[in-house]
């Protein structure tokens, strides 16, 4: 640094203050010193800005698609060797990209469903559609939220059952609008949301094929997009976005609750 420190604040306290790791009592001391020492205040502001810039610069790396050979390295090694044999590893890795997070007890079931194909395909399609349209600055939706009523009526007609656009303002996401997305057999409705930081989420809804019962929330990461999806009353729902798993789960619960309330006939 350019000049000798005349301030009594120890260097370690400055670092900890910048990182929000300083004990409350000492935090007050730093804050008091900043008031009387503009150089210190400026330095702390610059260090905090540096933290923010580093996160902004390095966080996009987390969205990179995971190479198949690394997913294969997350498979328990004994089963890799014993059950499948090494020659199946590449195929396994491809299949593996389709499954990610599951809770206790869902593991075996998920494996079965995985082989059957349907729900994981939905998560993957949801992630792709989200990535495609959320990245579109000018035309993420076909009908904007200003015409929400028209949007919902149109999607309801096209999907053949009543759809609802949940209100996510409580968690800071406003409805941007919606569009129709091609699905496997049946079309999918997509509702796009955006927060103040221009981060987008999408909720996708479609009729599931036959043989799909209820399913608890499940989580997958597809090409860096997190997806929570579930099946309820023969409809599949997926909420996708580049937000962390805990936040996405919270939003998924809100969506689930609102849709259940709407289906129960409560006024929206």
């Amino acid at each position: 640094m350019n000049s000798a420190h005349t301030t009594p604040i120890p260097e370690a306290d400055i670092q900890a203050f910048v990182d929000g790791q300083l004990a409350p009592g000492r935090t007050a001391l730093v804050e008091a010193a900043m008031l009387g020492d503009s150089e210190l205040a400026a330095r702390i502001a610059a260090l905090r800005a540096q933290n923010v810039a580093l996160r902004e610069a390095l966080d996009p790396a987390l969205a990179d698609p995971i190479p198949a050979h690394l997913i294969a390295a997350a498979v328990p090694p004994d089963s890799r060797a014993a059950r499948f044999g090494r020659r199946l590893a590449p195929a396994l890795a491809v299949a593996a990209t389709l499954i990610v997070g599951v809770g206790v007890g869902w593991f075996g079931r998920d494996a079965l469903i995985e082989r059957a194909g349907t729900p994981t395909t939905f998560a993957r399609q949801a992630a792709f559609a989200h990535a495609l349209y959320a990245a579109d600055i000018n035309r993420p939706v076909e009908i904007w939220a200003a015409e929400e009523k028209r949007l919902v009526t149109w999607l309801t007609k096209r999907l053949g059952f009543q759809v609802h656009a949940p209100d996510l303002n409580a968690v800071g996401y406003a409805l941007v609008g919606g569009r129709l997305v091609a699905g496997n057999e049946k079309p999918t409705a997509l509702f796009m949301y955006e927060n103040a930081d221009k981060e987008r989420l999408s909720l996708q809804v479609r009729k599931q094929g036959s043989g799909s019962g209820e399913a608890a929330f499940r989580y997958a990461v597809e090409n860096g997009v997190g997806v929570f999806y579930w099946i309820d009353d023969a409809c599949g729902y997926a909420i996708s976005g580049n937000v962390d798993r805990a936040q996405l789960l919270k939003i998924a619960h809100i969506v689930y609750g609102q849709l259940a309330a709407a289906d129960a006939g409560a006024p929206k």
Partner: protein
Amino acid sequence: MTRPAATDSPGLPHPDLVAAIPRLRRYARVLTGESSRADDLVQDTLARGWEKRRLWRAGSDLRAWLFTIMHNVYINQLALARRDAANVSIDADPGNPAWQLPVRANQLERVELLELLQHMGRLSADQREVLLLAAVEELRYEEIASILQIPIGTVMSRLSRARSNLRQLIAEPASALRVVK
């Protein structure tokens, strides 16, 4: 509902491990400054993690545990490469002149961020590492000390040096390869 599976499911990738991979890759890229070497390091780390899985305390932070393994695997690889296993640390590892950005340039919206990463590549590996863990991963200093197996005071002084070096590099435009101490 989203508790990590207590047992490994044969034939399927462990979800908690898969969830950790993006952060491991980022750490490895910051450490090695080279994306293909970084993925090798992640693969070696996952393999080592499976070997040592009995040592993982259920309920503890899997990310921090894997970071510790990655740090050690990296140090061991450096030691092997230098055939000097007795006293190698990455403290002396100079900034990599062929530093590859840990993020694809087209993913960065602002040119300052691109420049910031370029400057970061001129810090020594131990300084890059501590910056990533503290500023980006936002780990507690105690956790960082445990990952790097150094005293907490060393974490903080290294962090302080890394930050002021980075500021200095940014403040000196176009100064070519200057050695930063």
